[in-house]
């Protein structure tokens, strides 16, 4: 018995004339299935998901039919749809309606008009299942992003839906919260048999467990198969979506490996074991470790101490860091450790009560008002939206300078020339990030600070973004970013620093840094650690694999 049957669904938005957002989509979703929907940003994933619930269906021209449990979806009354089809969206904050956790949990039940007794037991059940008891009475405002998204999930599950639809639910979360969330979704699927349809950038955590993966491209379904087969197919087609595949899959196909394709780190390790029964000759990637003595650092922080309120604990507890000019440096570390606060301290948004900050050799307090941000330091905030004040991308950029040529130049670098007439809010996350970057670059900074730049970006956009950063680096701009994204830092940073307990602990080249960690490291490193010494990216593993196997093949 299938939950959903979609027959020849085509759809186009009223604003786009002929371009079809969905093009002849046919699909069956069985009860209890776990389905991953993947595709580049703008490939029609969200549009398709929104069609599965009448109240969320966008306006536009539509042909084709959708059936829910055998009946045409438009004949299923909205009450049944509300209860039976759960829908979790991207933004954890905006989805929450009320101000208390317990009230939010009950919101759906209140809407359905349940009586006190039913609500009491359902809410209690959900709070226990999702481990919410400890923060049941809290204000929603004090929750972390991960908790908020878990609350959204729980409040939907309280209505006991048959199908759970999740539209990039973890794009705004840090990796640990994201992985917790996705594990909970998996638990719901395996323990309750709820059908799950999910779109995600972070395929690493869900791909191996899915029953089916469906790949979309420009509104069409281009593949619909088991995850293992999808990996193969995308590689053979040379599809850009292949970059989003989990690390073991990418390593396997790029290295031209033998045997069955691994999906998880565990399978990856087993596969490498089988390939290298005798120890390989070359075990190391050559790299240049960093110099500890930096001559004329672009940025130097000495013993910064900071706290937000007089009687709250210190956030920065003696942060010292030197950033050489013309490099990409990354600070990694846990949530709420003070990474972003460090950037804010450099910009003077937070004022440390002890310690010294020197920018280009000059103490920050010696800069006159505004001088620090003229031709010197500039920061790209975590949420690019907080920089947008105009209704057009072009106006956004001309707020910074009147020089049209310069605007065009920067737009070229950031690859946003096509977007100049769009409203910044209409862009996708990755596009918004690049527009914000362009705006920041128009201050002509020598030092660029980035706060979680890859948050909410798909793998494809990340590569574009990295190209932009490398271009800036070649122009001599110093880049300092804080990030949760260890894969991104391993691949593109020159130096990686670990932030813990309010301090910068170690700074190393990524190969050295991640190569010596065993937990806080990339999937590629975890997968190859027992064979290779310092392969930290999928490319590193492939390179070493090829070097060692070169003769044999």
């Amino acid at each position: 018995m299938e939950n959903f049957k979609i027959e020849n669904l085509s759809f186009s938005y009223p604003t786009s004339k002929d371009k079809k957002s969905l093009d002849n989509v046919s699909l069956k979703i069985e009860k209890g299935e776990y389905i991953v929907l993947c595709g580049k940003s703008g490939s029609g994933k969200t549009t398709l998901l929104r069609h599965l619930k009448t109240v969320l269906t966008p306006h536009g021209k539509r042909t084709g039919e959708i059936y829910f449990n055998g009946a045409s979806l438009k004949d299923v009354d909205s009450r049944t749809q509300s209860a039976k089809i759960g829908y979790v969206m991207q933004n954890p904050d905006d989805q929450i309606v009320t101000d208390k956790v317990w009230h939010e949990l009950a919101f759906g039940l209140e809407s359905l008009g349940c009586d006190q007794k039913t609500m009491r037991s359902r809410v209690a059940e959900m709070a226990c299942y999702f481990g919410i008891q400890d923060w049941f009475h809290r204000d929603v405002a004090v929750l972390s992003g991960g908790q908020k998204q878990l609350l959204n999930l729980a409040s939907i599950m309280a209505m006991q839906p048959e199908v759970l639809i999740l539209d990039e639910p973890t794009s705004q979360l840090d990796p640990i919260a994201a992985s917790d969330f996705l594990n909970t979704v998996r638990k719901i699927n395996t323990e309750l048999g709820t059908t799950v349809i999910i779109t995600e950038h972070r395929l690493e955590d869900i791909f191996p467990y899915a029953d089916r993966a469906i790949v979309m491209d420009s509104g069409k379904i281009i593949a619909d198969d088991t995850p293992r087969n999808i990996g193969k197919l995308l590689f053979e087609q040379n599809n850009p979506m292949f970059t989003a595949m989990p690390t073991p899959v990418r390593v396997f196909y790029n290295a031209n490996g033998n045997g069955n394709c691994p999906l998880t780190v565990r399978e990856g390790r087993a596969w490498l074991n089988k390939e290298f029964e005798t120890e390989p000759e070359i075990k190391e990637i050559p790299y240049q470790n960093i110099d500890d003595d930096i001559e004329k650092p672009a940025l130097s922080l000495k013993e910064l101490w900071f706290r937000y309120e007089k009687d709250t604990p210190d956030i920065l507890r003696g942060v010292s860091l030197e950033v050489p000019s013309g490099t990409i440096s990354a600070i990694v570390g846990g949530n709420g450790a003070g990474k972003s606060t460090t950037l804010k301290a450099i910009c003077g948004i937070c004022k440390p009560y002890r310690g010294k900050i020197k920018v280009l050799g000059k103490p920050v307090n010696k800069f006159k008002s505004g001088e620090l941000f003229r031709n010197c330091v500039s920061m790209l905030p975590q949420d690019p939206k907080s920089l947008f004040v105009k209704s057009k991308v072009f106006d956004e950029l001309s707020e910074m300078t009147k020089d049209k040529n310069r605007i065009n130049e920067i737009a070229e670098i950031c690859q946003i020339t096509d977007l100049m007439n769009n409203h910044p809010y209409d862009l996708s996350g990755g596009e918004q990030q690049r527009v914000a970057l362009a705006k920041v670059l128009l201050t002509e900074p020598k030092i660029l600070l980035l706060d979680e730049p890859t948050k909410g970006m798909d793998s494809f956009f990340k590569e574009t973004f990295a190209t932009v950063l490398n271009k800036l680096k070649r122009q001599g701009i110093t880049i300092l970013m804080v990030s949760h994204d260890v894969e991104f830092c391993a691949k593109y940073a020159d130096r990686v620093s670990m932030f813990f307990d309010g301090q910068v602990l170690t700074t190393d080249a990524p190969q050295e840094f991640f190569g010596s960690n065993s937990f806080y490291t990339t999937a590629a490193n975890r997968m190859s650690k027992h064979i290779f010494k310092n392969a930290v990216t999928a490319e590193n593993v492939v390179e070493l694999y090829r070097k060692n196997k070169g003769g044999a093949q």
Partner: protein
Amino acid sequence: MKQDAFSKLHPAVNLLFFIGAIAFGVLLQHPVYLLAGIFASGLYYLLLNGRNGIKNILLMIPLFIFVTLFNPIVNTRGVTVLFTYLDRPYTLEALVYGVAVAATFVLMIIWFGCYGKVLTGDKFTCLFGNLAPSLSLLLVMVFRMIPNLLQKAKQIIGARSSIGKGTDEKSSFKDKLNSGMTVIGVLTSWALEGSITTSDSMRSRGYGTSKRTSFTVYRMTKTDWISAFVMFALLGIVIFFAANGGMNAEFLPERNIAPINSKNITGFIAYLGYLMIPTILNVKEVIRWKISKSKI
């Protein structure tokens, strides 16, 4: 989140108390009763706010003095003229009346301070949720929106200042005004954008498909019923004595204040007892805890 013993009672009982305390606070102008009110409310306010409360209570003193001295300026009635200025008399009776007005004023401020701490937004909606579910939901959403917007405003200001678009002490008034307007503009579009998601999320969870009910985490317990009963009883006694004139106080044009004597002292004790209920409950809890701990 720690709650004091009184706040743990059912919101309806909380509300009943404040209605009684505030209504009689306004009606009874008798100095002794006002003094009792200020004593009880101040004590409870300090219990709720701890050390931080002392500053706020001390702030009441200049306010008290100001209102007292100000009253005779607008009110010239009274028989004992202290002095005249600009041909207007400044009378002793008006000054004394000023004391009473100021006391009432301060009393109200302190009671409402306590009210805000005890009857939080969720308790308020629990009380009125069943009467007007949609209206109470609206209120809840507004409660949530305000701190949200403030936080976002901070974020925007921070983001703009770190690309050199911020303002500081040296900026001109015009620059500050401009930058403020920009932030407000962004906040508006941000809020609109967010509200689309919120409304999707609401409709997606069945908002508007059926008649709403209202979930509450509060239940009337035995303690709640007893407290409510005691409150009603004490209020009854107060009303009885008030009706018999035991609490009358007139200031203008002549002072005429009912004396407290053996006939109406019961009314005063009932009033003070009523106002002390929150404090007594807290003290009781502490004692009970101490006893049960000593048994272990």
